[in-house]
């Protein structure tokens, strides 16, 4: 489903020097996989994620999504892809303040041609166990709850691909495991999931671990024994 060919990304610092964030990364991800991208800070994993999520364009190389070369698409078509095919969960949530959970979740649907927006949003929030907080604003929700709203938003338009940048970074252990468990069940239901984490334990719940080091792929291993999150007794 995802094919990255020789992807490179160079930034210009304000002083004028170029910074190579990604150097010649090639990667293939099949439909239905659960991939974790790990690396230290500065390894380029966020940059890679942005490119996969069509949030940024590579400086070099090609990116095929679902067989299509998306690097050559125009802005509008890319936006369409982001709307229909990709769901992105940001590290800092990026929820609209002063907007209810329900309204935040329905945001992607506003830009689509779907009809029954309210229902779909409500169901998405129910799926992340926030049915009782749909009218709450981000400032009235805990970090974990905000993260779940962000996930609901990413999923509301039923995309094939779910991308998450450090989804458990701000969560306590219980919430983190709940989130991973959710990802696992989504994956079992057929969704392709790619997430970034610096936490080895979280990564171990995925089916495949790709390690980045200073902009290049250092390793790419399948997880031999997939762990399943145990639901601890409430």
């Amino acid at each position, binding site marked *: 489903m995802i094919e990255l060919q020789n992807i490179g990304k160079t930034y210009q610092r304000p002083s004028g020097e170029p910074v190579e964030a990604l150097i010649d990364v090639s990667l293939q991800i099949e439909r239905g996989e659960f991939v974790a991208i790990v690396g230290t800070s500065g390894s380029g994993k966020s940059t890679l994620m*942005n490119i996969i*999520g*069509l*949030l*940024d*364009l590579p400086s070099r190389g090609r990116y095929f999504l679902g067989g299509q070369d998306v690097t050559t698409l125009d*802005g*509008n078509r890319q*936006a*369409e892809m*982001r*709307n*229909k095919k990709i769901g*992105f969960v*940001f590290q800092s949530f*990026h929820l*609209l303040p*002063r*907007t209810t959970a329900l*309204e935040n979740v329905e*945001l*992607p649907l*506003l*830009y*689509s*041609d779907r009809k029954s*927006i309210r229902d779909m949003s409500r169901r998405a929030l129910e799926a992340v166990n926030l049915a009782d907080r749909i009218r709450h604003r981000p400032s009235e929700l805990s970090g974990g709850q905000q993260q779940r709203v962000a996930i609901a*938003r990413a999923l509301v*338009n039923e995309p094939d691909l779910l991308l998450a940048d450090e989804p458990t970074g701000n969560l306590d252990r219980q919430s983190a495991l709940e989130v991973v468990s959710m990802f696992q069940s989504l994956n079992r239901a057929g969704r392709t999931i790619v997430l970034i984490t610096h936490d080895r334990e979280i990564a171990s719940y995925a089916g495949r671990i790709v390690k980045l080091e200073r902009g290049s792929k250092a390793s790419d291993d399948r997880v031999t024994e997939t762990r399943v999150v145990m639901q601890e007794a409430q």
Partner: protein
Amino acid sequence: MKAIRLASHSMRMMKRYKLRTSFMMLGSFIGVAALTFVVSAGQSAERKVLEMVTQMFGDSGIVIRVGGGEDVGGPRGAGTRLKIDDIAAIAKEVPGIEDWDPMQTLTTSIRHGDATDNAQIFGESERWQQVWNRSASRGDSFDETAVASLARVAIVGPTVAKELFGNDDPVGADIQIGAVPFKVIGVLESWGTDPHGMDRDNEVIVPITTLMHRLAHEDTISGAKLLLKDPASSDAIKVQIRKILRERHGLSPGQPDGLTIITPTEVRRMVGKVQRVMFVYLPLVAAIALLVGGIVSATLMLASVNERVAEIGLRRAIGARAEDIRLQFLMETAITIVAGGLGGITVGFLVALFSAKQMHLGNVDPWMAALLGIVASAVVGVIAGVLPAVRAARLQPAEALR
């Protein structure tokens, strides 16, 4: 429909961010208010200035005088014997005459007790104040009944009052003009000296009928003044007046009419000059108001948009296309401009009205200014509010989100 959905979403967002929305509206509000105020107050000030200048120079009046032209034969030659009816006829037949006042004059002595003064007596109609733009500063003037009944009432000039009454109030007192007793009913507004060096305060005004029949024993008048609706028409009207008068008095072409008709040549030139000054002044000041309003407006809008680059990035990340962003911001801008603009017009107009009252400027007319203000706000709104948003929409979402 997707557009309607996005529209109502935008409006909901605007309501949530009351402060930010208020700021955007504030920009439009200020711009429009400033412009409305400046232009309407300016317009009425301009009108007032021209009014005052016209007052100073001389209003849009034509003066008809018997004599003052070529002397032919005897005292009044073969020329016309001008009558009040002649002037009335002109006022009726010539379009563009606002008002008129006939005139007859003689110089004689006025007595009160032991004091005497030699002054010029003017006989005029009850409309003399409007037509000559001079009024009775104390007391009253006479009305049409007084004119009809040849009343023996007089309005004396300040010099006459001083000569005859010293510092006492002359109103109500009895005086003798020539051999005829009159009652003083008012004191003339002081005009001072005229270009000939003649003391215009040494005059007395009485009803024209009284002067003609009781003092001068004449049935003709010595002249008249006509007020025009449009000062620029004075030359054309002068021609018409002469034609009518010659016709009424059966003069054949070539026969001198002994009439002098004077138009306000210099006046028009001066008023024209002043008009040109105000012509430059007002638009200049309006342009400045526009500029200031525009800059502040743009400032507030730009600041608002700057704040929302991350939001724009997020929407793009979720799937908004560039035109969705553009639609959203266009809508927001339109609403803020209309709301802010309406508020601005109201406040600007009220302030202009208030200042106009303080400065005795007369009526205030805000519509042109308001229209200009709204158009300007719209332009500023698009340039400062929509274009930056669209530019932000063109960024890669990752950049915008940073």
